[in-house]
């Protein structure tokens, strides 16, 4: 998983069917010191995170499990999803 901050949101009317109704957020990754690494990912957000919020992003099958717990979730189109809203880190 990755730790990062929501920096924005993305919209596209032309999208594949699997993304219907999904909220896509831009997440800027942070390193262990909390500084932005420069990497930006697009993640599906089901937790209604807002701009500036710190989150964790799950990738791969872990991301699908955020949308619907497995094992029968291989039909989902999801390779990155907001898994948690971070309240603190040490």
């Amino acid at each position, binding site marked *: 998983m990755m730790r990062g*901050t*929501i*920096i*924005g*949101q*993305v*919209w*596209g*009317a*032309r*999208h*594949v*069917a*699997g*993304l219907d109704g999904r909220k*896509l957020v*831009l997440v*800027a990754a942070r390193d262990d010191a909390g500084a*932005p*690494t*420069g*990497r*930006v*990912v*697009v*993640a*599906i957000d089901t937790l209604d995170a807002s*701009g*500036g919020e710190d989150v964790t992003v799950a990738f*791969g*099958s872990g991301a699908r499990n955020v949308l619907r717990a497995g094992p029968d979730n*291989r*039909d*989902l*189109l*999801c*390779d*990155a999803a907001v898994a948690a809203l971070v309240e603190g880190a040490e």
Partner: protein
Amino acid sequence: MFLGRVVGSVWSTVKWPEAVGLKLLLVRPYCLADLGAKTGGATGGAAGAQPTDDLVVCADRLDAGPGDDVVVAFGHAARVAMSGALPAGQKPNVPIDAAVVAVVDRVELDGEKL
């Protein structure tokens, strides 16, 4: 997934049968600095925003073209995205690991909150 700009296309004649008919695009991912240079949420040619990282070759069935901003998915999600273009009942066995899943109309940034 990542946000990037289509900068070109790739084609080939020698490939696996499962890959026949796939349109392949070259996409340059945006990094944080690129997004910071964008203003007002406009995309698709915002002045001064030049993406940087390595190029990614990805399959496309949304008819995206050079200059378009797109969202690209990796791995199994990419094969799921392309499976709609396959005959009914066929599993997503296309030999790809990246695909365009959305052509971006609008990006809204909360840069000052970072």
